[in-house]
C-alpha cells in the first residue's frame, strides 16, 4: 500500500509540474501591460519598462518559471504583480473561505447521499424515485443557476439569508454558517445528485454480490448483512465517489464564489487570471493541486485500509 501511495505521490508531483508550467506558458506576457496596470496611465513608458524589469517580467519564460519554481519549493510563492501582496498571505486569507465551502458541502453530501443512496438501494420505493429525480435535476441545472434561484427565492423574495458576502468563523460563527447556507445549498444539489445515485449504485452492486446470498442462506439477519457486509463493501467505491465530488467542487466553487461574492480562491483565480497576475494565478493553481493531492491521498489511504487486498501484512 505504501508503494501505491508513494507512486501516486510521485505521479501527482509530475502532474503538478506539468500543470504549473502549462499555466505559466499560457499566462506569459512581456510584462509591459502589467507594469502599466500597476503604475497607471500617468507613468512614462520608461518608468513602465523599468517597473516591468523590476518585477522580473522581462526575463525569458523558462528563467521566470524556474525562479518561480525555486521559490515555490521553498514555500515562497512570490508576490502579486499588481498589489505586491505576498501570494501566501492572499491564499491564507482566501483558502479558509473556499475550504469552508468545500468541507461543509462534502460533509453534508456524504451524510445526505449515504442516507438517500442506501435507503434507495435497500428499500426502493419513493426514496429511490427521489434519488433518481434529484440525479436528473442536479445534472440538468448548473450550480450557478441553482445559486441564482436560491438568491431569488431566499434572499430577495423572502429575505432570510444574505444574498452575498462572507463572514469569518473567527468573527462570528453563527454569521459564518448563515453566510454559507445558500452557497453550500447551491453546491449540495449538484453533489448529492451525483453522489446519492452513485451510492445507490454501489450499495446495489454490493447487495447483488454472491456472498450476500450465501450469508442469507446462513440465517444471518438482513440487518446484519447490510450493516456488516454490504455497507462495508460499498464504502470503497463510495469513498472514490466522494473524492471525485470534492475535486468537482473546485470548479463549482469558482462559480458559486462569483455568484455569492465570496472572497475565496476561486474568485481570486478568476480575477487574477483576467488581469494577468501570474503569481496569484499560480497560487490558486497550487492550492487546487494540493487539494487534489490531499484528497486523492486520503482516498487512496482509506480505500487501502478498507480493502484487505492492498493492506500491508
Amino acid at each position, binding site marked *: 500500500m505504501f508503494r501505491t501511495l508513494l507512486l501516486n505521490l510521485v505521479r501527482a508531483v509530475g502532474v503538478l509540474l506539468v500543470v504549473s508550467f502549462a499555466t505559466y506558458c499560457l499566462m506569459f506576457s512581456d510584462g509591459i501591460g502589467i507594469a502599466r496596470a500597476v503604475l497607471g496611465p500617468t507613468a512614462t513608458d520608461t518608468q513602465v519598462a523599468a517597473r516591468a524589469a523590476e518585477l522580473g517580467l522581462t526575463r525569458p519564460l523558462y528563467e521566470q518559471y524556474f525562479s518561480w519554481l525555486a521559490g515555490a519549493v521553498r514555500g515562497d510563492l512570490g508576490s502579486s504583480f499588481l498589489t505586491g501582496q505576498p501570494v501566501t498571505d492572499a491564499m491564507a486569507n482566501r483558502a479558509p473561505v473556499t475550504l469552508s465551502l468545500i468541507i461543509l458541502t462534502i460533509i453534508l453530501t456524504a451524510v445526505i447521499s449515504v442516507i438517500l443512496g442506501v435507503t434507495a438501494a435497500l428499500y426502493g420505493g419513493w426514496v429511490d424515485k427521489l434519488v433518481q429525480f434529484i440525479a436528473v435535476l442536479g445534472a440538468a441545472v448548473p450550480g450557478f443557476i441553482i445559486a441564482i434561484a436560491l438568491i*431569488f427565492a431566499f434572499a430577495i423574495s423572502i429575505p432570510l439569508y444574505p444574498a452575498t458576502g462572507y463572514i469569518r468563523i473567527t468573527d462570528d460563527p453563527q454569521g459564518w454558517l448563515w453566510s454559507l447556507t445558500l452557497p453550500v445549498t447551491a453546491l449540495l444539489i449538484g453533489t448529492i445528485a451525483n453522489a446519492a445515485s452513485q451510492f445507490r449504485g454501489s450499495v446495489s452492486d454490493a447487495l447483488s454480490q454472491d456472498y450476500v446470498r450465501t450469508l*442469507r*442462506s446462513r*440465517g444471518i439477519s438482513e440487518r446484519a448483512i447490510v450493516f456488516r457486509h454490504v455497507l*462495508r463493501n460499498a464504502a470503497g467505491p463510495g469513498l472514490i465517489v466522494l473524492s471525485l465530488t470534492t475535486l*468537482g467542487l473546485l470548479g463549482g466553487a469558482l462559480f458559486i464564489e462569483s455568484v455569492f461574492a465570496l472572497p475565496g480562491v476561486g474568485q481570486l483565480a478568476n480575477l487574477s*487570471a483576467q488581469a494577468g497576475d501570474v503569481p496569484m*494565478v499560480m497560487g490558486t493553481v497550487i492550492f487546487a493541486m494540493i487539494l487534489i493531492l490531499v484528497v486523492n491521498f486520503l482516498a487512496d489511504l482509506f480505500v487501502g485500509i478498507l480493502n*484487505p487486498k492492498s493492506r500491508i501484512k
Partner: protein
Amino acid sequence: MTIDQHELDPAADGTAAITGERVRRSPLRSLLANPFASVSIAFLFLIVFIAITTPWLAPFSPNATDLAATNAAPFTDGHFFGADASGRDILSRLMWGTQQTIIACLLVLGVSLVLGLTFGLLAGFYRGKFETVVNFVSDVIMSLPGIVLLIALYALTGPNIPVAMAVFGVIVAPSFYRLVRSVVISVRSELYIDAAKVVGLSDARIIGRHVLSAVRAPVIVQSSFVLATAVAILAGVDFLGLGDPSAPSWGRVLQEAFNNLYTNPANVIWPSILISLTILSFVLLGNALRDTLQASNRSAVLKGARRRSLMMSAQDERVAGVNDLTPAQDVILSIRNLRIGYPTSADDVRPVVHGVDLDVRKGEIHGLVGESGSGKSQLAFSTLGILPREAVVLGGSVFFEGRDLLADKMRMRRARGRGIAYVPQEPMSNLDPSFTIGAQLIYGLRASTGVSKAQARRELLDLLTRVGIQDAERVMSLYPHEISGGMAQRVLICGAVATKPHLIVADEPTTALDVTVQADVLELLRELSRERGMAMIIVTHNLGVVADICDTVSVMKDGRIIESNDVDSLFAAPHDQYTKDLLVSSRTVELKEADDE
C-alpha cells in the same frame, strides 16, 4: 459547476456496451416509445429549428435597443420575455444566442470525439507503450482544473468562445478516450477479432468492421452527456463574463439579468429555464439512449403494487391449503406446485418454473439436472428463500420437515442455516472479501446457533481439519483472496455444515473448480452426508457428477421436472426423449475429453 462525474466516467458502461450492441430491433422506435426521450428530442429539434430560423423569426435584432422599453416586464407589448437594462428584447437575444450554443456544442463534441475516438481506438487496439503514454496524458488532462484553464486562456486570447470551446473539447476528450479504450480492449479479447486476424483482415478493416460497431452505442450515449456538459460550461463561461460581450448568448443574458437583479428580478428566469431545459433534454435523452441501446443487462422492474398482488394470491393459495399434503414419513423436503417468474415489464411476469413437485428423503443425495436456464437453480434458491430480488414466487409451497417455509417468513429464516444450508457454485465470490475466513465462519455459526465465540472457533477448527484443510489455524486468519478456489469451496462447505443442518443445497458445487479438485470435493460432500445423515440436493448440469454420488435424480427442462427416478434406473432406462439426448451428449463429451487427454 460540477461536471457530473458519473456521466463522464465511462467505466460504468464500458463493458455493458458490447451486450447492448445485440439489441437490434429498431432502437429508434423503442427510443421514441420513451416519453422522456421523445419530448427531449422534440425540444432539441425546436432549439435547432430556432437556431436556423432566428434571422427571420426573431422579433428584433439581438442588439436593437428601445429606450422606452428598458427593464420592461415580461409579457409587455412587443417584448414577450421583457427587455433588459439597455432596452433590448430578451426573447430575441435568447433566440440569437441559440445559434452560438449549437455551434459551441458541435465544436466541443467534434473535438472531443475525434480525439477520444482516435486515441481510444489506437490505444485499445495496439496497447503497449503508446497506451501508457496516452493514459498519462489523459490522466493529466483529467486532473487539470478545467475552468481555471479556460480563464487563463481568456487572459491570452480574450473573449474567444470558439477557441475556449475547442479547448474544452480537449478537456472532455479523456471521457471518450477511456470509454472507447475499455470497449476496444474487451472487444479485442473476444474471439471474433482473433478469428478476423486469422482470416487475414487488415488492422484498419478490423477496427472499421468490428471495433467501431461495438463502440458505437456507448459513444452515442456518452455524446449526449457531453453535449449536456457543453451547454452548461458555455453558459458558465459566458456567465463569468469570459464570452464576447457583443454577441448575444444565453449565459450573457443571464449574467446581465443577474447584475440587474434588484431592479428587474424576473429577467433571470428566462435564460435559467432555457439553459436548464436544454441540458435536461440532453441528460434525459442520454438516459433513454442508455436504456435503449444498452438495455439487455438491465432487468425490468415490477411495479410495487403488482408484485404485492402476485405475492398475495400465492399466499392465499397456501392458506387455502391447495398444496397441502401429508408427506411420507421419511421425506424431509417436499416442493409442491412451485411456480417462479421474472418480470418482463412493469406489469408482466414471465414464469420460468411451472408448478414443480419434488421430494427429497432423509439422507438422500438428490441430483437436479438440466441445461442452463432450465430453472434448476431457481428451484434450489427457492428452498432457501434466496431468489434474486426481482424474482417472484407465483405460487406453490416448500415443505421442510412438514412445514411450509414459503408461507411464513420467520419460519424460512429459522430454517436457514440450522435446517437447510447452502453450498454455492463460485467459491471465491461467495466469501466476503473484506473479512477473514475465520471471522466469516465464526460470525455465520454464531448467528444461527448462538454458541460462544471460543466454542464456535473450536468447532470450526475441527471441521476445517475435517474437510481437509491443514493448518486450519492459519487459514482462519487469511482473507479470501489469499486462498485457492478449492480451499475456498472447502471453507464454504465447512460453513454450511458447521450448523449441523438436515439438508444441504449445493448449487453446482464443483463447476468452478479445477478438474483435479472436483472429485475430492464431491467425495467430501458424500462423506459428510453419510456421517451426519444429511440429505443433499446437488444442482448440476454434469451427469457424471450425478452418477458419482447421487441416489436419486430429477431432470428439469424449461421449468418443469420431466423425469425423476433413482440413478441406476434412470441411467439404465430413461423414459423421456430429452433425458436420452442428455445422456448421449454427456457420453460424447466424456469421450471427447478422454480423447483430449
